């Protein structure tokens, strides 16, 4: 029983149509994004499903998931939302590290940790191509990404409260 194919048949077919029929493997990354969309993580069943659809082994699918930082395995842990703050050099030159420290202190956690309610994980990430809008963060949530430029601790805390109110926050 291929759950991914069953639940998202039209989307799977649409993804496969983007690549030559003899190169189905090319669909593996879009399929990982699709599998991750609902819960924010890729579970072991999805690895098997994607392997079956693309004609490669589930070990190969897992290795691709592990190589790319935006894919999250079920056992990786973390909250429902990942608030990812760029602290790379150009942003650091504009105060993003002080921002991250103050933001985490206000949340009562360290970078990399999850809030006690299990919803919000704050992560320190590398360049997000928005160095002119530091401090810059993105939220990875229900498989999608949203950008938040020119952040202050106040605006970031307000964003966290908005995320907590989302209907799927208690998924």
């Amino acid at each position, binding site marked *: 029983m291929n759950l991914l194919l069953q639940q998202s048949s039209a989307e799977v077919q649409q993804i496969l149509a983007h690549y030559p029929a003899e190169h189905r493997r*090319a669909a593996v990354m879009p399929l990982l994004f699709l599998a991750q969309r609902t819960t924010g993580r890729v579970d072991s069943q999805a690895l098997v499903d994607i392997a079956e659809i693309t004609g490669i082994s589930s070990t190969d699918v897992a290795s691709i998931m592990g190589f790319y930082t935006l*894919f999250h395995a079920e056992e990786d842990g973390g909250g429902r939302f990942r608030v990812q703050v760029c602290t790379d050099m150009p942003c650091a*030159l504009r105060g993003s590290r002080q921002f991250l420290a103050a933001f985490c202190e206000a949340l009562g956690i360290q970078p990399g940790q999850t809030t006690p309610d299990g919803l919000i994980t704050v992560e320190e990430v590398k360049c997000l*191509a928005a*160095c002119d809008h530091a401090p810059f963060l993105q939220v990875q949530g229900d498989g999608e990404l949203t950008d938040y430029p020119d952040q202050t601790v106040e605006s970031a805390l307000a964003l966290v409260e908005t995320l907590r109110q989302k209907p799927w926050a208690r998924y």
Partner: protein
Amino acid sequence: MTEYLLLRHRDLPDIDQLPIYRANGGFAAFEKALKTQQPVDVLNTVKASGLRGRGGAGFPTGTKWSFLPNTIWPHYVVANADESEPGTFKDREILERNPFQFLEGLMLACFAVQAQAGYIYLRGEFWPLAQKLNQRIAELEQAGLLGDHILGTDYTLRLYTHLGAGAYICGEETALLESIEGKLGQPRLRPPFPAVSGLFGKPTVINNVETLTNVPLIVDRGADWFKTLGTEDSPGVKIFSLSGRINRPGNYELPFGVTFRTLIDQYGGGILGGKAVKAIMPAGASSTILVADDRTLDTPMDYKSVAAIGGQLGSASVIILDETVNMADLVNQTVHFFKHESCGKCTPCREGTYWMAHITDRLAAGQPSPQDAALLGSVARQMQNKCLCALGEFSTMAVVSALEKFPQDFGIS
């Protein structure tokens, strides 16, 4: 005030809407090419314009297109929208605000090499931009500008977006191809070059977003017009991404040949807090660090002139470092970036970035020592010319230049 050529949305804010783009000359170049020209005409026009790749390497675009053999089919064109070099944020603005000019450029590139499918590889962090591009591609299909029998001709073309998922290395063109094919983003051995054996083993052109965004202008207005802009060595305009310790960071579209001093003072509004400028990284985290003396500041920003003072213009991601920046700390940050992003395929890069990170951790933690500085320089120089792709080499540029030009920051008197 001269008109914007690439950041046209700054003159026409609604140009991200298809009817507005078309009402302002959009797709006239594509229509002209399809109805009145042969693919080779478009290729020759771009070749004659002297357009050079804007992604960093500066390779002549038309020449790159001409490498595709007409004996192997199909051909593919891939737009590199993986923009990941720290300090670079120009493609994000084009894709978000002037997307149709980029798409038209990609479509002209496809026509020029007779490709019937084009892929746009976007870094995963550009998810929202990919969703918008998908909508725009659908609009173009509805308008008869993509799909079968485009504009009544027998040309067929389809475009697809493909999202990466957080890996700097996928901006390297062969790693990018691996990533589209559903593999780890690790560079391929060359030869064969992508022009002969690229995506799915077929002849492939890979161009940066900004490069492609120039193409409609060149086809529309001609190679001679294009060469009136910029310098003889570097024709056209360039988007300079200005960041770091500067009052007004942002993208500045300027002709090649404007000096660093003009960019910093006139456009960037000077250094934050009125401090003194210490150094410049003209090509993002991969740059050789240039001491910001008068010679550097008065250097015109074009490929040849920046190379003449020992630097690289790269993708023109100009990071400004002021007197408050300690170079051991800065190098510690760039090295950690490359250590994180090293794909692990080749040993010099995997091990070299690891050890440079360890050594610079000590140096940056306030324990500058001549011994560690010497060891750091030794590791960096052992990596040079030994890595599989440019990433390993890039990781050493700031290290070697900072040690040479700012030894006092590393405890060397």
